[in-house]
């Protein structure tokens, strides 16, 4: 089990109803974490359309959860 802080942006935040939450999870990696939160919050975006970041840097879906880290799921961006 690891406790992480999860940040939600854009349509993910609208779906979750919060922009940040603390999550205790036994997910094997960041991809499994997203899938469990997707079920909980009903996120419309499949994992294939997202990127993931940990502690302010892009990360891999296969990265393990680090205790105390800050995880963000990055929907497709629409800058500019």
């Amino acid at each position: 089990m690891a406790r992480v802080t999860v940040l939600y942006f854009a349509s993910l935040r609208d779906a979750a109803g919060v922009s940040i939450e603390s999550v205790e999870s036994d997910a094997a990696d960041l991809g499994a974490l997203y899938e469990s939160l997707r079920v909980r919050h009903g996120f419309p975006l499949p994992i294939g359309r997202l990127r993931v970041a940990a502690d302010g840097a892009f990360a891999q879906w296969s990265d393990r959860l680090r205790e105390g880290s800050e995880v963000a799921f990055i929907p497709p961006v629409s800058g500019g």
Partner: protein
Amino acid sequence: MKRFNLSDKPFDIAPSRDALLNAHAGAFASFEGWVRDHNDGRAVNGLRYEAYVALAEAEGERVLDEALEKFDIVDARCIHRIGDLAIGELAVWVGVSAAHRDAAFAASRYIIDEVKSRVPIWKHERYAEGEAGWLHPE
């Protein structure tokens, strides 16, 4: 020195442009993105840009570092607005100075393309017909 910046209010281009001009740079190319009154055929009243600030700043800086490595340019800057914007407001500005125009054009194009595709900034449009939505392009 930071070359990529987020701004939560309207910003003046002049200081950033002036910082890029120098006696060695014969060419200066710039790009500006403005809030249009329509998108994909729908009338737009205004929009909001939201960023994951820490990651956007880091990734934006990386894009500019890459441009300086890939192209024979003197210097480059990018500023992106966040927050609420009205029609006709400046959303993003890119400026590149170089000895020659080939590199200035190529780098400014690279920077705006990469910023729009990689830097975590999301656009929320309010439509005249009342709906609103996040743009998450395929």
